[in-house]
């Protein structure tokens, strides 16, 4: 009876056996390393591209920090690199300064912390941790990377054109971005920006669709939702947010493209240039802000949630304790994901919106503090009385908790519409989001690299260099962003090229110098990481199969897993992923694939009940197969 019903099923599973065979026949260089459909190779491609972008984004930020911190310095030694972008006096060209700020934001938010973070770790960890041979569609996954690559090439090219890259800020508000005559960067640079972002959105959607499908449909036997590691939950929510919000950015960009190139008036109205009126009538620039921030705010959580998931995993592993409040962690992430869609207008308090509407968005925004506080509480209580191992990954995770808290608190200030009127578009905002979203997510990403490096490359990264990297970066980040709060409260506006004309601000010259010096220090520290990363790929200490004594499934694979991940059967999952330091257990961790029947010494009464189900597994599954 059962076998008859199963026949039609076999056809749908064909691609699975196919994936299984992949280990045996080896492709050539192109199919193995370039156009690979293996999720692990694609993850590494995302990681390395993301790191290249992070380096570029970081260098751009140091360039504009030079202008802000040392406005009188002679930068003509940069002539070989910047060429015409330096004024004859050896200073950064004001328009190029705006381009630097814009590209720093775009690169960091989208290319590093969206594609570099989600692309790397969702791709790498989802199949490995849920027990799947690969993503639901390896081909779509490959496309996702190559769309990202093409988008990267276009964005990178825009840095080198004579009129410079887009310069209207990473939020590309019209009319500045819509009118090519507004500034140099609004010409070809802006066009390339829009094309690159359209392709980027396609890449992101391809990726997200794959992640969601894989998490829901490809889990191994026994991997119920309540047994998913928190990383997977985080990637899952991130992908859902991406699928729902990126199309909205696409709509905004589409209308902007029509305004720029076809003469429509979605965002343009009553504009005079050189005393002459433009023909565009009836558009609304505020409309763009609504559409942009409907993506823009969820984007914050697209960037942050994966980092929070990664740190949940690392903190539990290295505290040798179960994560405190697993369900609360999942619930708070879900709550954050939902709230992220109903708070976008808090970026627009000063656009002349109805104050009553403003107070609603204030309320909704402040509610986000609740799930965020739950998460911080749970991190701290997980650490509490744990046998903490201070690995480099662990240090970066704790650093994330610190930034998330420091930056989160200023979010409560900014979320209030009344206070935001004073602080809007000052360095206070810059300090806030660089701590809570920029640095926190960056630390999550770096922590993830340190933690999963052994699985990615089969070797360990150097711990001592990791410590140096951590302390320099951690102190550097605080030295960069903490003083910015004071500069911001004083009213110093962001995106300004120069402040020396304002007597009020001249008192902040030394503070700005400190910030710039710290920025240079922080960037330099990243080269330690870069060296460590590249050196360890080739010369690092060979990693054991499970170097961190972790419980999740990826550590049950061979040291260098092939395409298909497990040479034999995929392990079955019997328990949740946080059985660390379980009382009575032989070791301080019990991996997810160990059945309760093998651990009678540590089982709780209700877990002994589950042993019966483990033994009956086969017959239960045959029943299920009928559908």
């Amino acid at each position, binding site marked *: 009876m*059962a*076998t008859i019903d*199963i026949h039609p099923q*076999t*056809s*749908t*599973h064909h691609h*699975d*056996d196919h*994936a*299984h065979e992949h280990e045996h026949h080896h492709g050539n260089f192109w199919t193995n390393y370039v156009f690979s459909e293996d999720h692990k190779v694609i993850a590494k491609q995302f990681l390395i591209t993301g790191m290249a972008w992070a380096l570029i984004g970081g260098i751009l930020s140091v360039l504009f920090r030079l202008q802000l911190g040392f406005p009188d310095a002679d930068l003509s030694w940069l002539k070989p690199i910047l060429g015409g972008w330096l004024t004859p006096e050896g200073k950064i060209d004001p328009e190029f300064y705006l381009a630097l700020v814009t590209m720093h934001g775009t690169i960091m938010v989208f290319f590093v912390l969206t594609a570099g973070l989600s692309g790397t770790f969702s791709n790498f960890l989802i199949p490995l941790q849920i027990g*799947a041979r690969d993503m*639901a*569609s390896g081909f*779509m996954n490959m496309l996702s990377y190559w769309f990202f690559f093409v988008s990267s090439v276009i964005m990178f090219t825009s840095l080198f054109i004579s009129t410079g890259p887009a310069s209207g800020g990473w939020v590309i508000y019209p009319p500045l971005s819509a009118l090519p005559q507004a500034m140099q960067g609004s010409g070809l640079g802006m066009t390339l920006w829009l094309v690159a972002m359209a392709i980027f959105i396609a890449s992101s*959607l391809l990726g*997200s*669709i*794959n992640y*969601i*499908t894989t998490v*829901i*449909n*490809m*889990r*191994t*036997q*026994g991997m119920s939702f309540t047994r998913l590691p928190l990383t997977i939950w985080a990637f899952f929510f991130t992908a859902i947010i991406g*699928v*729902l*919000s990126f*199309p*909205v950015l*696409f*709509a905004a960009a*589409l*209308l902007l493209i*029509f305004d720029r190139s*076809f*003469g*429509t*008036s*979605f965002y343009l*109205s009553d504009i005079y240039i050189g005393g002459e009126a433009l023909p565009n*009538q*009836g558009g*609304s620039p505020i*409309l763009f802000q609504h*559409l942009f921030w*409907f993506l823009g705010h969820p984007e914050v959580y697209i960037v942050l949630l994966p980092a929070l998931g990664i740190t949940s995993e690392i903190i539990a592993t290295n505290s040798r304790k179960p994560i405190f409040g697993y369900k609360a962690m999942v619930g708070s992430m879900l709550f954050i994901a939902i709230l992220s869609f109903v708070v976008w207008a808090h970026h627009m308090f000063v656009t002349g919106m109805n104050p009553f509407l403003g107070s609603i968005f204030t309320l909704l925004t402040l509610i986000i503090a609740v799930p965020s506080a739950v998460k911080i509480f749970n991190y701290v209580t997980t650490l509490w009385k744990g046998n903490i191992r201070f690995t480099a990954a662990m240090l970066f995770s704790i650093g994330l908790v610190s930034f998330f808290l420091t930056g989160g608190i200023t979010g409560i200030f900014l979320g209030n519409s009344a206070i935001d009127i004073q602080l809007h578009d000052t360095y206070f905002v810059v300090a806030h989001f660089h701590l809570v979203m920029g640095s926190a997510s960056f630390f999550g990403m770096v922590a993830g690299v340190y933690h999963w490096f052994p699985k990615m490359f089969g070797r360990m990264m150097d711990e001592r260099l990791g410590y140096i990297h951590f302390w320099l970066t951690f102190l550097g980040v605080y030295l960069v962003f903490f003083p910015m709060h004071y500069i911001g409260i004083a009213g110093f506006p962001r995106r300004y090229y120069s402040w020396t004309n304002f007597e009020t601000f001249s008192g902040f010259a030394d503070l700005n110098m400190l910030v710039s010096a710290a920025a240079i220090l922080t960037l330099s520290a990243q080269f330690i990481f870069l060296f460590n990363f590249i050196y360890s790929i080739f010369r690092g200490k060979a990693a054991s199969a499970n170097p961190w004594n972790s419980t999740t499934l990826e550590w049950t694979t061979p040291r260098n897993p092939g395409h298909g991940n497990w040479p034999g*059967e*995929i392990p079955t999952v019997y328990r949740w992923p946080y059985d660390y330091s379980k009382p009575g257990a032989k070791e301080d961790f019990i991996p997810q694939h160990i059945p309760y029947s093998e651990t009678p010494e540590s089982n709780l009464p209700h877990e002994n009940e589950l042993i019966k189900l483990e033994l009956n*597994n*086969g017959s*239960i*599954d*045959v029943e*299920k*197969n009928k*559908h």
Partner: protein
Amino acid sequence: MDNLTTGDFKIVEEPAKPLAMEPRKFGMWIFMGSVVMLFAALTSAYIVREAEGNWVYFDMPQVFTISTVVILVSSITMQWAYWSAKKDNLQNAKVMISITAVLGLAFVVLQWQGWGQLVANKIYFVGNPSGSFLYVLTGVHALHIISALVFLLIVLVATYRYKVHSKSLVSIEMCTTYWHFLGGLWLYLFVFLLLYR
């Protein structure tokens, strides 16, 4: 994942998949979710913009009513094709897929004529945003219909190669879902444009 690598069926090793659905089908649903968000963004932008005033009222082209009927009929033929394939009546399935494709093409042509009528009514793409929105909404929808036509052709070829039959329905099922979805989407846009203009 499964152990059906060789001829012997080790059924016991089959993983339990509580929410198991064919992954490609599931991915299609998520894709449709993102298309919904795209049009939700455009139509809500439309509402927000209309509320600000300076909005030129337009008459919906007559042709759009005909195209609505055409797309609804094509949904029926598409469903018919799916049922035929399910009953292994491949000849009928091929005919019905072809009719659906022709109707879909007719829909695109009718939309194009609708644009012609708009131009005759002096509603241009470049002008008051009300008209621009009308072109964008119908145009982006038509692009999706064209993508579905490509999908239909792929399924049609697959049917000729006997890759679509009662035991292999995933592709035609996905195509049917997508087609109904786009039909429903047009119905939504049509009613929306009638209510807010």
